[in-house]
């Protein structure tokens, strides 16, 4: 027994310590092939597509339709098979790249693009796709959106699924509180007033913006004339007075008793259950919210991001781009076929009508053969398209420290909003730490 005990303890010590360890790499160095080889329909090329939309209940069906339609039409005709992988937390593609698996296309978020470019072998579009075809294809896509995936003048991500922040409103609660949902609150002061009225009249929370929303926060800071990351990406600016003032406004809103408490997922559930007056989130949730409201017997209204006083608001974008890392000329060609399809008129018709993201080929909204009928029926999308014109990109954090910076920034925002800490001090502390890393 004694000896067994001793052995066990030793074993425990060893197992515990080896919590994390990495195995050696095996795969050979993949060179950068710029050319394109011919595809063969008789011998189709398989490529993988990692998508977080596939893991979200409100987006899954639409994304599956998009992929299936490609496989059934162009894929079959040209010889490409796309295998989709659901990646809810943006971890699977990293793990699979580390494991040496083929990860060809990723539905990638904005803030960590530079990190992926530096560490994970993602490639610039100009380096793997034919230049003339690329230029031709990009015509008609909102130029503002195209800028977002560029680092050092090269495109590492093509804008794919896009949304802007929307104030969703529960029409029933608005009317119960004696408010008119068609006359939406325009400023943050309006939001505060309406939320307190809703709370007083219905007992339900008037407003919700999750402290961990991850992106709308940046719109808040920009709208008040603040900056998140300096132009040269060498320092952060979110601790300067304009930004601090914006976050202080939110802190006051959060703690006035009419603000819903909880994390993003919990707030979405609360709003969809009909228990919240106004909720700021991505348009991507629109299809889910619409279904929930129909089931719950209330109606949804929408408005753009509120502004500070008379300063026009500056919404940021949420959503994704397509980042690619094909490693052979054949795969270059196969990946290009898929990219072309999903960002085509047909692709965006599916994305907008079935998932809820914006059509980045904005002309589709007025095209009777495109999305005109759909958008006339759901005028909320017009607000989005309007916001798209003055959209500002979210910060793409300097690659080397991107994840640490994201954590520091969002923790500081969370602490400022949830607790009654001094906003200026909290933000300054985080900014100092980040600046120390990137300078």
């Amino acid at each position, binding site marked *: *027994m*004694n000896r067994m*005990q*001793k052995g*066990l*303890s*030793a074993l*425990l*010590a*060893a*197992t*515990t*310590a*080896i*919590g*994390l*360890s*990495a*195995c*050696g*790499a*095996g*795969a*050979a*160095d*993949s060179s950068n092939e710029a050319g394109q080889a011919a595809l063969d329909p008789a011998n189709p090329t398989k490529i993988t597509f990692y998508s977080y939309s596939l893991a979200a209940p409100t987006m899954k069906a639409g994304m599956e339709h998009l992929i299936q339609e490609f496989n059934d039409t162009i894929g079959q005709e040209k010889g490409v098979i796309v295998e989709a992988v659901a990646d809810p937390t943006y*971890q699977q593609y*990293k*793990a699979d*790249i*580390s*494991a*040496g698996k083929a990860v060809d296309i990723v539905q990638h978020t904005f803030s960590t693009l530079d*990190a992926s470019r530096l*560490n*994970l*072998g993602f490639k610039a579009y100009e380096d793997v796709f034919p230049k003339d075809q690329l230029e031709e294809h990009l015509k008609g896509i909102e130029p503002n959106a195209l800028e977002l995936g560029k680092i050092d003048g090269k495109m590492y991500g093509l804008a794919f699924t896009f949304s802007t922040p929307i104030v969703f409103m529960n029409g029933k609660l608005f009317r119960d509180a004696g408010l008119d949902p068609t006359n939406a609150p325009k400023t943050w002061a309006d939001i505060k007033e309406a939320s307190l009225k809703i709370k007083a009249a219905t007992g339900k*929370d008037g407003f919700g913006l999750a*402290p*961990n929303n991850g992106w709308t926060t940046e719109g808040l800071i920009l709208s008040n004339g603040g900056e998140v990351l300096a132009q040269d990406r060498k320092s952060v600016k979110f601790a300067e007075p304009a930004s601090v003032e914006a976050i202080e406004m939110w802190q006051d809103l959060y703690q006035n008793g009419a603000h*819903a*408490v*909880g*994390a993003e997922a*919990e707030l979405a*559930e*609360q709003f969809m*259950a009909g*228990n*919240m007056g106004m909720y700021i989130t991505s348009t991507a949730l629109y299809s889910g919210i619409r279904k929930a409201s129909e089931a719950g017997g209330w109606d949804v209204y929408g408005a753009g991001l509120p502004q500070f006083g008379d300063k026009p608001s500056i919404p940021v974008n949420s959503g994704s781009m397509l980042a690619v890392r094909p490693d052979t000329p054949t795969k270059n060609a196969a990946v290009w076929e898929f990219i072309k399809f999903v960002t085509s008129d047909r692709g965006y018709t599916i994305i907008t009508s079935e998932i809820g993201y914006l059509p980045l080929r904005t002309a589709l909204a007025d095209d009777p053969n495109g999305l005109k009928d759909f958008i006339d029926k759901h005028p909320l999308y017009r607000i989005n398209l309007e916001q798209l014109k003055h959209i500002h990109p979210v910060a793409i954090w300097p690659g080397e420290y991107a*994840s*640490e910076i994201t*954590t*520091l920034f*969002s*923790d500081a925002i*969370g*602490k400022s909003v*949830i607790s009654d800490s001094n906003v200026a001090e909290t933000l300054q502390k985080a900014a100092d*730490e980040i600046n120390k890393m990137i300078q």
Partner: protein
Amino acid sequence: MSQALETSYAPPLPGKPSIARNRSLNGAKLWRKLKPYLYLLPALLLLGIWMYRPLLNTFYLAFHKWGMVPGTTPEFVGFDNFARLMENKSFIGSIGNTLFYTAGLLPFSILIPLLLASVTHQMEGRMKNVYRALFFVPMILAPVSVSAIWRWLFHPSNGLVNDVLLRLGAISQPIAYFSDPGFAKWLILFITGWKMVGFSTIMFSAALTGINREYYEAAAIDGAGSLKQFYRLTVPLLSPMILFMLTMSILFSSQWTFAYIDILTTGGPYGTSTNVYYEMYKYAFSNLNAGFSAAAALLFFIVFGVISLTLNQLSRRYSFYDN
């Protein structure tokens, strides 16, 4: 007791050349020497591949910078990872939480199970097993589904807990438990503990069945009450198991809380519920910085190594074996 005699040496048979005899003798000797190692080989191979190779790899990576991408080579950075680690506030903060979880789990892994095991041990018949099964059920539930259940119970707007407390008038506003620094880590601790209780209870129950009943009869005759029997007989006789569970609890508390941290709070709100393992996981698989993660792992290898050696000493000194 009899002793088996070694009979490997046999007198040489007549008519056989002496050289051949010598060689076969050496072969047999070698075989006899090799045999125990062959028996050990499978275990050594498994340990080597799954434990010592990764361990050595961790030592190596701690001094390198590497994103784990195939085709890239780790870059030697000396002690940079350790320096960066010491400056990292979230890592320093997570050490405090790790201590909180380690100490906070002890009642759930030792005190409560010890009481539950002793109480159910004295029960007769079927109910004894029914109770023990009830305690054990949380242990076999998958952490993800357990988290989903707790998440719904503590949901800020639709959760049962808030609903009841609001009705009772105990609170005036619903609480977002997993987004509130005052509640998040306590709930993580409680859920991990709730799951832990069943396992420890079964371990203690098993150890209790090994105690000779005659001791209790003798103690009762000598006039010892049930409380006195508990701390004069049960506790000392269970000491090996208590020390074993203590070791398990201290060394594994960080790992057992991991799943709930990941699913319920992802370390938040603002890093107040994270622990070192979750931080290490983030460094390696979210930040793709294997070297940084390895440096943290190496530090904790040393810390936990010291703790387990100390506990080993304690175990040797204080365990009482009723052999």
